[in-house]
């Protein structure tokens, strides 16, 4: 219902399309994070104080590995969407605003590379 009325807003202006999509994708990541947070947190609280081998074995299991990887990547994406809205609300100087948004974008992509590297390495590690 609400999505159909939002679609009517699309295409009115370039800015309008962008903001509407931003809003919809933010809800999309929120919904994905509902099951992912539950699954990941339950896994994490059970192993965070365990020795290396045990933690490694847990996250070498394909399901646990994928859940943790998706939880972290989608959280990063969701964080970026959220912080963009916060910055748009509170940073009124357009130059500063755009610079901050760009720096956050670069930082997030850097973290995405670190995370994917870590998870592939963990998955392929030999005990």
């Amino acid at each position, binding site marked *: *219902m*609400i999505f159909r009325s939002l679609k009517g807003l699309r295409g009115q202006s370039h800015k309008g399309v962008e903001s509407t999509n931003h809003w919809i994708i933010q*809800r999309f990541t*929120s*919904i994905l*994070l*509902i099951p992912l*947070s539950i699954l990941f*947190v*339950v896994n*994490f*609280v*059970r192993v*965070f*104080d365990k020795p*290396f081998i045990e*933690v*490694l074995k847990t*996250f070498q299991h394909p399901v646990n590995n994928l859940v*943790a990887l998706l939880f*972290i990547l989608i*959280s*990063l994406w969701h*964080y970026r969407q*959220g*912080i963009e809205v*916060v910055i748009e*609300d*509170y940073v*009124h100087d357009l130059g500063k605003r755009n610079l901050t948004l760009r720096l956050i974008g670069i930082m997030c992509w850097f*973290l995405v590379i*670190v*995370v994917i*590297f*870590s*998870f592939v*390495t*963990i998955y392929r*590690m030999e005990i």
Partner: protein
Amino acid sequence: MTQDPQNRPLSPHLTIYRPQLNSVLSIMHRITGIVLFFGLLLLIFWFFSMSVGQASFDLFSALINSLIGKLILLGSLCALWYHFFTGVRHLFWDVGIGFGLEWVQRSSYAVLIATISLIILTLLIGVFTV
């Protein structure tokens, strides 16, 4: 009433707004969202240290299992479940459910109760896992 266009009141209006349960919960949703980034960063470091090898993992594990480390994890856990439930409430609002003042008041208490319950539940799962 004319105002200098350069000097309009812009958000945040927090300093001139009388705090109420709903407004406090709302701003806390933002604050926990921002703070949770540091928990996420800690998690990324944890997995990165694991991928480097046992020596670096043991070092980082000792750090997060110290008293200060555990307090940071506990804080992140509380912030996570709080943000989770206020977020779910936002999703209901987004599809137009629960807007009446009475329902907002009720869901505020529901959010707080759910948050505290999930914090206790996850702590119990953590403690009673052998």
